[in-house]
């Protein structure tokens, strides 16, 4: 087995991230599934935060208005009516997410935030083949999206727990991200960007991809990575940080006391992980702690310890 074939699949370079932060420009956002329950709840919250959500799309509902936002049957109709759209936040039901994302990409949208939970993994494989070909950044599914505190909200983060600042926060959890954000805010560390890539097995973007974005982002001085047991994302991220990230990083991983029965591993998956050189215990807390230790990344014991570790690494 050559080492070459085992290296992570090379991600296409993502579009330059600062686009999200440049809220003063003409960047416009769309909600696909605006008439869905969550779409109706969160669209006004995003707009209230200052995000330019200019249209909604729900097939068969075109012509309606939801709290002042016009609804169209298709993305291309929305663009024809409101002008160029750069970002779509997707709330459609799980089996409609693939089609919605393909439709958005066909209409030229290159930033997709998938909020919906329960997207079948093979739909994500299909979606990612297309997003890589079109160089589209995909966040989610099953995630609260992105927040640039004080500027823009693309998803369901509770904005009152965040504050503007210089810490890049990347996570694969939902509410645990908010927990860490409010500890950071309480500890005097505002955030440059916070993103959750989602907890699904096939996420649209990886920790590595976001670490690279945060490394290149001028507003970000240090990075907090929040993980969970299960899967191999944290192990891969730890390796990547050691190789490619110069900014200080603090990590936190939840699940130390989670009962073992909760972790499911299949023969094939275990074999696959073991062959990737990550040991049979990949996904366990031991494996993740070892990976971060090997990469010399300080690991917080609790969310409230993160600001203390940040102070230490940012002084160094």
């Amino acid at each position: 087995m050559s080492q070459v074939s085992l290296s992570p699949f090379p991600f296409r370079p993502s579009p330059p991230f600062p686009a999200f932060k440049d809220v003063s420009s003409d960047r416009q956002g769309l909600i696909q599934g605006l008439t869905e329950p969550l779409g109706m709840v969160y669209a006004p919250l995003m707009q209230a935060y200052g995000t330019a959500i200019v249209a909604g799309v729900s097939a068969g509902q075109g012509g309606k208005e939801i709290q002042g936002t016009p609804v169209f049957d298709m993305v291309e109709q929305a663009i024809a009516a409101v002008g160029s759209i750069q970002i779509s936040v997707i709330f459609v039901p799980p089996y409609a997410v693939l089609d919605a994302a393909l439709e958005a990409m066909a209409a030229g949208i290159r930033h997709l935030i998938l909020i919906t939970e329960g997207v079948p993994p093979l739909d994500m494989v299909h979606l990612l083949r297309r997003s890589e070909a079109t160089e589209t950044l995909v966040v989610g599914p099953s995630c609260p999206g992105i927040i640039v505190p004080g500027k823009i909200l693309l998803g369901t983060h509770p904005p009152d727990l965040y504050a503007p600042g210089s810490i890049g926060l990347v996570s694969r959890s939902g509410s645990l991200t908010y927990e860490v954000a409010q500890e950071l805010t309480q500890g005097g560390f505002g955030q440059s960007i916070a993103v959750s890539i989602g907890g699904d097995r096939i996420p649209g973007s990886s920790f590595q991809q976001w670490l690279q974005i945060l490394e290149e982002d001028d507003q970000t001085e240090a990075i907090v990575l929040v993980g969970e047991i299960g899967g191999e994302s944290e192990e891969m991220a730890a390796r990547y940080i050691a190789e490619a990230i110069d900014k200080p990083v603090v990590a936190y991983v939840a699940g130390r006391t989670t009962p073992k029965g909760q972790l499911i591993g299949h023969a094939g998956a275990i074999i696959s992980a073991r062959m990737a050189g990550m040991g049979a215990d990949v996904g366990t807390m031991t494996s993740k702690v070892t990976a971060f230790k090997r990469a010399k990344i300080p690991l917080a014991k609790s969310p409230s310890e993160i600001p203390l570790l940040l102070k230490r690494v940012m002084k160094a």
Partner: protein
Amino acid sequence: MDLLEYQAKDLFRQMGIPVLPSQQIAQPRDLKGLKIPYPVVLKSQVYKGGRGKVGGIKFVENTIDAVAAAQAIFRLPIMGAYPEVLLAETKYDADREFYLAIVLDTSTRRPLLLGSQYGGVDVEAKLEHMQQVIVDQEFSLFYARRLAIKMGLTGELLEAVSAIIAKMYSLFVQQDLNLIEINPLAIGADGHLMALDGKVVIDDAALGRHADLAALVATTPQPVENPREVYSEQLKRVQLNGHIGVLCNGAGLTMATLDLIQSAKGKSACFVDLGGEYRHPCPPSTLQERLEQGLDLILQDKSVRVILINLLGSIISNPQVAEVIASYLSRRNRNWRLPPMVVRLVGDRLEEASALLAQANVPVVPSLDDAIAKCVILAQAKSA
């Protein structure tokens, strides 16, 4: 969701993957009506692996031996699980045994083909021979050939194994599988291939669009991953062995909360995760219902001495959360005395929420560390 061997083989048969003639045996006397000729293999149909090593597979030459063997297998637990059914299958003499599988590889985010010329029970021992191929674009037969070649195959065997891999891939995609595994794939002395054992794991998220698979799994008892789980609607309570009952929203936050309780020398009795907010459809009313269901589940656990509610960034406002809890308590407290409760909330309109819960004598604590410390003290006080 796992399929039993005989269910996996039904899918194989439909797809044209070669399997042996076989018959399901629900009780030992079914063997008297056996339609396949002896010698026959009897195999325990359980979700756990390793059945061969503990006696869950037996070769038999006649009906008398078969009935006796079946009785033994029905009484034999495999890692704690008893079979509901056995599979009687024609005996097959394998010349060699290969391993083939397809999984979803989370790091490349693509399907991964796995194969080895060293299959059977020793596959994990001979892991250095395992080969893999990532299916980075739409599948085509050449990906299967690439794996077969990496496995060291040539000539007719190269083509025959590639064809089996292609059929496995068709099943994998058509049925939204998380895993399809043939181990062993037997190579007969005549060069013919035969799937002697098979494993299929269906993706739960996709089950809603496969009516046939949903019907199939509905007919068989599903394995309970953790016997100490109790379900109510879609919520489940996971049982631990302490005294603090934990109600959280989101898996990550739940895990973090349990970790922190242990760090604070506390012990969790059980937990209920109300889930993230991305489930579809999820109007605000549903979260309120789930909150009440979650409280019901936790109160059913008599070892709970303190309840910690930790809800963060939920779709309903803090005062709404407080209101649901307060009204729940006022209804339930009429009938009996509930354990003390600590509610952890942060964010907007916290005073309102605190005021609402103060009437029910429930403290609202914005710091998670403080809330947990309070719970640990309360639990100890109750035990003292």
